[in-house]
């Protein structure tokens, strides 16, 4: 059962399932991950729409993809082939992982859309790489405009103000989560975030502000006895997974997820012109393993653990997710040095594997409980 403050967000997602988004009058451009410059898509007159995967079986996507890529991309492709994303005008994706890159090209030839564009993103931060990113974003703007967009600097200024405000409100909710005073569960919080993927930002910001106000009134003084943990990993789409963790004795007090903290921090970038601010924020964002070194991520995760008083870390990976799987041993080693216990769970496309997850989590929390007396 969703908590009262989160209920409107569940409603938004249900509404999105019931009513074809195309009928809303919006022109949608899809994207897979949050390294996509959605402010630019919005400033060009399109509504960014994060493509979902979810729990589903795959048959049509077998004709285009091998079974050893992440479940997210497989199920998303399955849904696209079933016509569920027929309302998307196009698809834009920042180059993050190899699978995202390959899928953009596969969608281009099998599902279609205009634009269908992959934005190359620099790995380094210096003057030349920022200039390069500026050129890459201008190329995207050209493509959006050719597809009927209406980009202008003034429009980008407006879009940035909306998205910056959204990020500020959500980071404010994260602060409350660290304190343990957020009056809804991690599953609800994920739903709040996911509603933003399918909703025009003007409407979403209004919902978020109401949520923040209600959260103020419903501050919970006492939390049920549970062990605070940080969840780190790739994309988690099923609120149920987070609910199982919390039902098993944990309380998710912080996260480093693709569907969580990584997309919000920092709320804004600096610079005189709006494009400068998009670039600056991109360069300083909380990093994904596909774009960074485990060595550099470890202290950031440890800092989140300290800030939120988490007592352990749960790694939740999409199966076959190379960036996360490759970083895990180094991250684990760094956490051990700091005496922060961790466990890992891989998610598959066909089901949550509730029994396995629950057993693993209960054992982990028992260990944490014993360790801390």
């Amino acid at each position, binding site marked *: 059962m969703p908590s009262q403050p989160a209920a409107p967000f569940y409603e938004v997602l249900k509404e999105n399932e019931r009513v074809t988004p195309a009928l809303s009058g919006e022109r949608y451009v899809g994207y897979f991950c949050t390294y996509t410059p959605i402010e630019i898509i919005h400033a060009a007159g399109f509504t960014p729409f994060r493509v979902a995967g979810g729990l589903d079986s795959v048959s049509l996507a077998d*004709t*285009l*993809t*091998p079974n*050893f*890529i992440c479940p997210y991309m497989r199920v998303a492709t399955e849904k696209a082939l079933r016509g569920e994303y027929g309302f998307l005008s196009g698809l834009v994706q920042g*180059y993050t*992982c*190899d*699978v995202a*890159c*390959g*899928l953009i*090209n*596969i969608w*281009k*030839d*099998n599902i279609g859309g205009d634009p269908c564009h*992959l934005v*190359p*993103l*620099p*790995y*380094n931060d210096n003057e*030349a*790489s920022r*200039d*390069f990113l500026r*050129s*890459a974003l201008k*190329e995207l703007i050209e493509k959006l405009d050719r597809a009927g967009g209406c980009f202008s600097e003034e429009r980008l200024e407006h879009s940035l103000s909306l998205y910056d405000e959204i990020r500020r409100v959500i980071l404010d909710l994260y602060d409350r989560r660290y304190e343990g005073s957020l009056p809804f569960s991690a599953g609800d919080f994920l739903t709040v975030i996911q509603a933003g993927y399918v909703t025009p930002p003007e409407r979403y910001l209004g919902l978020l502000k109401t949520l923040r106000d209600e959260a103020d009134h419903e501050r919970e003084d006492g939390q049920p006895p549970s062990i605070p943990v940080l969840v780190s990993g790739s994309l988690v789409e099923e609120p149920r997974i987070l609910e199982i963790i919390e039902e098993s004795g944990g309380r998710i007090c912080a996260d480093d997820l693709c569907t969580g903290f990584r997309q919000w921090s920092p709320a804004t970038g600096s610079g005189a012109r709006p494009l400068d601010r998009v670039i600056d924020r991109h360069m300083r964002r909380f990093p994904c393993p*596909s774009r960074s*070194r*485990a*060595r550099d991520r470890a202290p950031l995760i440890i800092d989140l653990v300290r800030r939120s008083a988490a007592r352990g870390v749960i790694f939740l990976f999409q*199966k*076959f997710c*190379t*960036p996360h*799987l*490759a*970083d*895990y*041993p*180094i991250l*684990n080693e760094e956490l051990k040095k700091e005496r922060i216990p961790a466990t890992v769970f891989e998610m598959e496309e066909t089901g949550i594997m509730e029994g396995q997850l629950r057993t693993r989590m209960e054992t982990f929390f028992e260990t944490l409980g014993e360790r801390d007396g």
Partner: protein
Amino acid sequence: MDKTKKSTKRLRTAKDLNRLVIDYYLECHEAKRRGTPVGWMPPMNGAIELFYAMDLQPVFPENWSPVCAAFGLTPGNFDVTDGLGYSRDLCGYLRNITGYVHGFMNDESIPLGGLPEPDILLSPGGGCVPVMKIFHILERRFPKAKVFSADLPQVAVEDIRKHHLDYAVWEMNRLIDFLTEVTGHRMDHDRLAEVVKLSDQACALWDEIMSYRRFIPTPLSAAEIGIMFVMVTRQGTQIAVDFLTAVRDEVKERAEAGIGVIDDERIRLFWDNIPLWYNMGLFNYFEKMGGVAVAETYSAAWSLRLDTEHPLEALAMKSLMSYPLVSCVSIRKRKEMVLKACREYSIDGAVLHRNKSCVPITLGQMDIKRALEEELGVPSVIIDADHMDDQNFSVAQFETRVDAFMEMLYEKKGLKL
């Protein structure tokens, strides 16, 4: 057939290749001994030419993996990597090199003396994620090595624009400055121009060698594709040009004399994706039914000409194009190349290796399969395997699928078994 097997080679120059491989690793160790800085780098980019032009020693950990597979070192390396907590779902190159550097690296029994420790790591941003992660792991393993964090636009070949090239050239210049600073070796631009000319000659020879594979019967099969070792490790040197000239002469002679890989060539095959390095003998398996693997995707990575008038731009362009041409970065271009090869090489059927260790090359394969069928009427078969891990490969399944596929091709061509 065994699960691990070497291929049967027919070229005289194949023997020269063995010598060339040994010499390369001896040179790497000799360089280390005499104090020439050793830099580990990923393959398929323009940094190799910069290294040779600056008298630095390039070493390719990714290329070491096929050598490990050929010598049977891979399972031991995998065990070490498993013990470190790395998933078995990760790329076999990553698992092999990680195990090697954390395990038997300094063991005296390692063939060819193994790899000399790096003084420099050219750590890529660009290329595929597993290669990027390999270098992150190496940075941690070799903390004294000087690290150059490279950056390269990841863009489809057909979409390359001026800003991509400008940034790639800027990165080339940054790399030269870095190498000068950490090694004291300076770039002689006349020398660089010579190296780029040699590199381009090697590419021209490569293309010429490949062109003789159009002959029926073909003088060169994928069983000999180990010759790409020179394109990986020696591009920009006279050694590569001399070796490839010898190969070209032999292949030309055989082609013009009508000497094929086998006496009775009946079916011409295309191979997509990386070979199974631990079992190159698979390429000979087709031969019992008159099949020869005439062309493959992977060799296209070296089929690039360089603009010798503009050496730095040429190397930047090579870096931008080489990997995308064979991966999912440029599926359309890759598909176009495969179709062109199948037309020009009179291909009867394609074998698509669905490679658990290489997602970037495997993605797009199904589009290629469909295009082959619809546009050329060329049938194909999918082989599930892995270029490094024989645990992900079933010989029996391979044989069953290939036998049935070959029978179908025989029927299609009106041949009798």
